[in-house]
């Protein structure tokens, strides 16, 4: 029975899965083909950040968001959920298969990226910070869970897709722009000159001082790995919460 | 009905004057050598020629896959025929189609569906459409997607009638309706035909639905016209003759179907209704029902094809 559901899942979602796989292979191929990353910093950045991001949006928008609304809109949930498999079990199995598949793709696409990224840019922002494979995998899990939950909530395909897109981008931008620099309390220096070399300014207080700077908050660059793991944990927690929400919404409407 | 029979006879050979006059003897729509081939090589219509007299309720009868929906879609301008042509009455027919799957915008309320109909048409009779919805107690403010199948069908009828069609095409119109609603819908439709100078062409494969509704029959089989004519006249022309087992009945007329059970033979014969063949004992005559007639023609056509 489980296997039968795996076949059904494949049959329903094969177009998106094949597209995702093709994209993964294409991006990986590009990254492997580029031997000299330094002279091609621009294109490499485009591929290394664009590649995983497109995969993430594909998963959230075209795989997760329509998953439930399509069943509701086409009335097929009546068929799908009146079989021996209950609705919540149907959801658990489907999510299990699909999430494993897309996480595998994400691991492949971002692991190669890790090997290839050029270490020239700002350590706390794109593409250095977010290129870290676990972070990318957590983004994919989050996008999937967000799409699924919004689909369960709205039960309308296009609306769920639109909200997933907006929600994903807003949360990502908000975390990157506002939250990230304060994962750990920043250190303080009197001005830019005395700030340690391997660190990144995250806030400047203007006032009386040389060049009008009264103080600098900064994060040492050796904190980047722990920050990356914190961000991974944050998005995985969000994803888990959204998956539970989706499961609860479907279960609530379950007849049996 | 007698007048209509004459109309029909006249209608079989229409003159140009008739067409220009747009009189009741004209045809609402004529289809000539129409063929439609779908991708994959299936011929849904194959050299189909027929015409629908105006001001009548015509039934398009055929088994599943006979080409009914294809024919209606082509008449409505939704499908392009592979070859052949559809000719509407001179001066233009206003064609409305109520498609089989009752296409409605799921998020629209019935009131909004009427609004959409008003915007898409140059002629629109809001009162007529609303009247139809009220008559069948359809809530005007619930999304169509949340209505029952029968209610959705009623909204489709209302939108189609609001466009004041002169040719109303109904694809399996009664399929989703309960017996009571079915009876009411047919009664109201007939009233609208009388009021509105409208021709109705309705497709069905349930012959029982037609009795008392359709007065003209078009029988379709494998994409071709098998039989057409005024229903009363067809019924008058067809009779069952039963008698001792025989290879052929000793009378004049076209034998549509022959059945031999035990020592008895039964023939369905089509003959001139004015001068029905007279038979002698031990042969007996009984009238044929519409269903007998349709089934017999379909079976004999299948035998010919095989």
């Amino acid at each position: 029975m489980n296997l039968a559901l795996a076949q059904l899942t494949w049959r329903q979602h094969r177009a998106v899965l094949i597209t995702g796989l093709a994209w993964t292979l294409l991006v990986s191929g590009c990254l492997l083909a580029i031997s000299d990353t330094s002279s091609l910093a621009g294109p490499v950045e485009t591929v290394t950040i664009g590649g995983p991001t497109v995969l993430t949006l594909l998963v959230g928008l075209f795989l997760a968001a329509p998953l439930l609304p399509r069943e509701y809109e086409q009335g097929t949930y009546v068929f799908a959920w009146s079989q021996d498999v209950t609705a919540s079990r149907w959801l658990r199995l489907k999510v299990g298969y699909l999430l494993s598949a897309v996480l595998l793709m994400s691991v492949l696409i971002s692991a190669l990226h890790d090997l290839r990224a050029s270490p020239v840019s700002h350590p706390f922002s794109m593409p250095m910070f977010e290129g870290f494979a676990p972070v990318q995998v957590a983004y994919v899990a989050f996008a999937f869970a967000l799409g699924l939950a919004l689909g369960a909530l709205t039960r309308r395909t296009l609306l769920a897709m639109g909200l997933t897109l907006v929600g994903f981008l807003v949360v990502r931008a908000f975390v990157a722009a506002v939250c990230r620099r304060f994962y750990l309390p920043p250190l303080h220096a009197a001005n830019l000159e005395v700030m340690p070399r391997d660190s990144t300014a995250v806030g400047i207080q203007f006032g009386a001082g040389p060049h009008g700077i009264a103080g600098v908050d900064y994060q040492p660059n050796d904190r980047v790995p722990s920050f990356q793991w914190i961000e991974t944990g944050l998005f995985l927690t969000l994803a888990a919460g959204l998956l539970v929400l989706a499961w609860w919404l479907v279960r609530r409407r379950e007849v049996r | 009905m007698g007048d209509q029979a004459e109309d029909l006879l006249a209608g079989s050979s229409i003159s140009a004057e008739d067409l220009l006059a747009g009189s009741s003897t004209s045809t609402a729509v004529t289809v000539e050598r129409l063929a439609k081939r779908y991708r994959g090589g299936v011929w849904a219509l194959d050299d189909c020629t027929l015409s629908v007299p105006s001001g009548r309720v015509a039934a398009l009868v055929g088994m599943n896959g006979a080409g009914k929906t294809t024919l209606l879609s082509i008449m409505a301008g939704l499908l392009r025929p592979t070859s052949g042509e559809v000719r509407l009455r001179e001066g233009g027919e206003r064609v409305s189609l109520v498609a089989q799957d009752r296409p409605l915008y799921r998020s629209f309320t019935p009131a909004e569906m009427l609004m959409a109909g008003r915007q898409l048409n140059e002629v629109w009779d809001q009162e007529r459409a609303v009247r139809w919805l009220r008559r069948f107690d359809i809530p005007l403010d619930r999304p169509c997607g949340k209505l029952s199948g029968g209610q959705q069908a009623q909204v489709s009828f209302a939108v189609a009638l609001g466009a004041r069609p002169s040719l109303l095409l109904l694809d399996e119109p009664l399929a989703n309706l309960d017996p009571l609603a079915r009876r009411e819908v047919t009664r109201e439709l007939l009233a609208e035909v009388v009021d509105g100078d409208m021709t109705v062409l309705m497709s069905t494969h349930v012959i029982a639905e037609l009795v008392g509704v359709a007065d003209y029959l078009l029988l379709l089989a494998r994409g071709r016209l098998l039989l057409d004519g005024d229903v009363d006249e067809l019924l008058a022309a067809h009779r069952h003759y039963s008698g001792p087992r025989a290879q052929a009945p000793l009378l004049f007329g076209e034998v549509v179907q022959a059945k031999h059970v035990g020592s008895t033979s039964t023939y369905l014969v089509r003959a001139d209704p004015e001068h029905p063949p007279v038979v002698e004992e031990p042969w007996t005559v009984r009238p044929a029902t519409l269903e007998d007639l349709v089934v017999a023609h379909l079976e004999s056509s299948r035998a010919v094809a095989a």
Partner: protein
Amino acid sequence: MLWLTWRQHRVAVIGTALGFLALSIYLLNCSGQVGEVVDSCAQHDCQAGPGFALTELLATLRSVLWVIAPGLAALIGVFWGAPLVAREFEQRTHQFAWTQDRSATRWLGAKTAWLGGAAVLLTGLTGLAAQPLLHRLDQVDAGGSGLHPAPTAWAQMLVALAVFGFALGVAAGALVRRTLPAMAITAVGFLGAYAATMRLRLSWLPPERHLFSPATAAPDLAVLPRGSEVVETGYLDAAGTPKRLTEVCFYSAAPEDCLPQHGIPHSYVDYQPPDRVLLVELVGAGVLLVLAAGLFALAWYLVRRSVQVG
């Protein structure tokens, strides 16, 4: 038709409009911030000029102007254009919509006109809202960073992108007749077209070349006329054939010495002079509009072909 168009697309239109509204407010707000810094740097001493003081904001603005705004324009294609015809086919409602007095092509014409007009209006207003900021950024740019955070014809490009995306969506929907695949095709097609436009943005006319001899690892862009846009930088060997900067020299402590040692006496910058920048960018926007016209025609033909003539 206005009511019907609005009724069917209002959620998408409102959602996208809110996005453009937020973007416009943000751009106006940023214009104020940039203005303050530029003005105060003009009066007092700023460490390394306004370009440095605004480093973080400029990085954010670059991604907003180059990624977020075109992304919003893509939404018009994906959520307005792609479902326009595809949803009608998918939900079979074309059987209703196209059998009324208004022919299918008139239905399509009216809908694309209203929605296309709305797309032009939204992106045009956003482009207007961006004007003060773009003027301010010109002043920052003149400060010497050499990197302009936005194309000169940003507003025109945004309008052209929105119209192109919308046309692409409509045509894709008419072609595949299924909403989700049409949306995916639109998104991918838009991405490809945008990437190509940005790459070719300055190449519609042959660029001017400035030679550096001896070669420099990082060209000093301040020598170019103010307001120029860099098309490409590179290195030349003695024979004048283009060479890539070797890894050896990239990691070398003194690339200026390393380059001649490896047989690279010259480096160059290809650029469009300021008086041509606007022209070449407008040509790019024009190409997008021509493509859009072709896609509209394709959609029109596909819809017309799917219904009987007359």
